[in-house]
């Protein structure tokens, strides 16, 4: 009996059991409920995120359905205009709200939010192998781009999705060659090239835009000064130092004498358009605004354009850089789900797909930037734009963190004063010295009013 039992069982049950087993297999394959529960731990979760409108998110939205399919959660990503988003997010986080599970940590708000404890410490997620696999590698993010999202103790509160490296775009190298002018490497040469080109073929020598608190500091630092005495430890403004005065006079001179009429009201779009159409020869701004000179279909100067490091000052060579990061509000309701999203959105795989499938280059993962595919896509007219981008982006993390001035929570107050001072000098309302003395006085008064101990 014993030996026959299996046989009986095998033979007796074979058809029915086989059918049952088949049905069970079919059912499991069709309705894998237990499997969902295991592989989709966030099923039923709706994740609320917010950022400003940016090409990165437009592209990312194409991939989000894949993430939703994998994770089981639904992603509700709210995108607003840049100023609208910043105001809304600032109010939401400052008031301790929990409307968002993840947010964009805008560069100039990063220090405020980190200092005020409004963001969750992401090290708690990256240090847990159950939450973050080793391949995700937080160290892969370019260190210079990560500086704003780390506190004094080195804890991380955001991971950068966008890097901005200040570079110089020249649209009319043909004119420069005709005039025997070389690419300027120093501030003095920059002034010479602007003077040499301005007015030739109706081309302006230089163009800029109204965010002077972004454009001016590299000149201040180039001449050896700084915005604050020793940020982040000492935030006493130093706007009336001889170096800052020299810088504002130098920069205002470029705007006054070599830029298009009305340049102080120019938006970034207007400045870029002026460069892309060849109406202005030089624009110094973040790489994502300059690279379209070589890569965009809109550009009329693809054959005559060059993109290089911004000129060095007599003392320092400190091109500005910034980044935008993703973080989790301290009071977010779905922190783990939010981390799952951030981990996915900033994974090497998605970063590489953005590069390969959309040519999106302003990402912050070193392994991707240094990859062959990235280099191939970002080398135009023999210019390796990726290498230039990486070189500038990582500068603040090498040696002195010269971008620290922009990551302190006091910067917006001082930045507003800088804008006014530059406009006053460019329009001849005040001399460089008087404008910067007034700016210093105003900055100190405003910071004291805001409760900053100086």
């Amino acid at each position, binding site marked *: 009996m014993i030996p026959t039992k299996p046989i009986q069982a095998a033979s007796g049950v074979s058809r029915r059991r086989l059918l049952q087993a088949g049905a069970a297999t079919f059912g499991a394959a069709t309705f894998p409920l237990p499997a969902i529960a295991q592989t989709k731990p966030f099923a039923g979760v709706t994740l609320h995120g917010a950022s400003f409108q940016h090409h990165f998110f437009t592209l990312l939205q194409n991939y989000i359905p894949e993430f939703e399919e994998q994770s089981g959660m639904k992603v509700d990503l709210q995108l607003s205009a840049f*100023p609208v988003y*910043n*105001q809304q997010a*600032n*109010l939401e986080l*400052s*008031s*301790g709200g929990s409307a968002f599970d993840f947010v964009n940590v805008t560069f100039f708000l990063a220090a*405020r939010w980190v*200092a*005020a404890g409004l963001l969750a410490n992401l090290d708690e997620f990256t240090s847990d192998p159950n939450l973050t696999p080793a391949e995700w590698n937080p160290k892969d993010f370019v260190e210079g781009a990560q500086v704003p999202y780390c506190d004094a103790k080195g804890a991380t509160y955001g991971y950068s999705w966008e890097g901005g490296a200040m570079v110089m775009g020249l649209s009319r190298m043909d004119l420069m060659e005709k005039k025997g002018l070389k690419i300027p490497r120093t501030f003095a040469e920059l002034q010479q090239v602007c003077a040499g080109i301005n007015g030739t073929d109706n081309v302006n020598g230089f163009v800029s835009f*109204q965010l002077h608190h972004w454009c001016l500091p590299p000149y201040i630092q180039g001449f050896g000064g700084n915005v604050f005495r020793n940020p982040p430890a000492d935030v006493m403004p130093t706007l009336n130092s001889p170096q800052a005065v020299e810088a504002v006079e130098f920069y205002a001179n470029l705007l006054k004498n070599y830029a*298009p*009429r*009305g*340049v*102080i*009201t120019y938006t970034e779009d*207007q400045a870029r358009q*002026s460069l892309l159409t060849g*109406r202005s020869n030089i624009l110094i701004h973040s790489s994502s605004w300059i690279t379209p000179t070589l890569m965009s279909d809109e550009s009329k100067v693809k054959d005559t354009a060059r993109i290089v490091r911004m000129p060095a000052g007599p003392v320092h060579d400190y091109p500005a850089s910034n980044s935008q990061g993703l973080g989790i509000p301290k009071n977010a309701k779905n922190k783990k789900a939010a981390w799952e999203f951030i981990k996915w959105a900033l994974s090497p795989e998605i970063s590489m797909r953005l590069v390969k499938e959309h040519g999106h280059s302003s990402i912050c993962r070193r392994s991707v930037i240094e990859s062959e595919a990235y280099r191939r896509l970002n080398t135009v007219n023999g210019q390796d734009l990726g290498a230039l981008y990486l070189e500038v982006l990582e500068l603040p993390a090498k040696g002195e963190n010269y971008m620290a001035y922009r990551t302190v*929570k006091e910067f*917006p*107050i001082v*930045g*507003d004063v800088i*804008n*006014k001072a530059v*406009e*006053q000098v*460019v*329009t*001849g*309302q*005040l001399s460089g010295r008087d404008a910067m003395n007034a700016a210093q006085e*105003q900055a100190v*008064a*405003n910071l004291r*009013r*805001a*409760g900053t101990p100086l």
Partner: protein
Amino acid sequence: MTEEGSIEAGRRRFNRWALAPSLIVLLVIAVVPALYLLTISLTPFQLVNPGSATDFSAPLRNYRLLPGDPRFVNSLWVQAKLSFWGVLFQVLLGMSLALLLHTRSRFVEFARTFFLIPMVLPPIVVAVIWKLIYTPDISPLYYAAGLLHWTMPSLTSSVDFALIAIIVADTWEWLPFTFLMVLAALQTIPEEYSEAALVDGANRLQIFFYVTLPFIAPVLVISAMFRLIDSVKAFPLIFLLTGGGPGSITEVTNYYAYLLAFDSGEIGYSSAVTVVMLLLVLAVSFGVMWIGRRREALT
């Protein structure tokens, strides 16, 4: 109580109940936010320091700082200039236009409708239109000047012209308001008065000063007061055209309050600026009501 008195009391009670929903809505949408604004203005509330929203240790600190803040003082002065010139041009041009178009013809009726367009456009659209006009690279104005070999300065970035540029745009937007008001007033003047004056030998100018102007004067005053109150709302034009610059040449008080709140995160101080602005507007509003009552008393 007599029966008449009881009916009167009932009517008053009914009136109070009928008004109650409107008063509640008004309370929720106007009074409560205003009280909140006033409360916050008594704190040093900073966005980076949420706890400061309940710090009432020095409630008048913000108000004490205001007179010593050169940008605030300057912003009041800029607002005064903008309001004065803007309202003056709107009243004078609106009245002139109404006098010109106070005739009966199909063309004039069409023209009247046409002149109303700027007022019904959303303010931000008006700002975009003037941004196009004032941007040298793309403006037809600058193109025409170029054809005449005249190099026009950039109006919105010029110290001499930036505020004028805003006044022109604001006048263009709101001139139809005074135009409409004056036109309506003109249509109520009995024609016999002008005809009698003509028979008495008065010329057109005398008819205007001695017949028409006395009739439309109260409307002109009321229009001017309304526009004065509204002139504080030139925010979209300033935001888009000049950003308050160059320097602080076009920085009016509400734009300064905006920068304080949303660029610098100084909500408490910004609220104090706004409260002062609110008080000024209230003063003008009471002026309007006083003029209205005085007019009623006179008539």
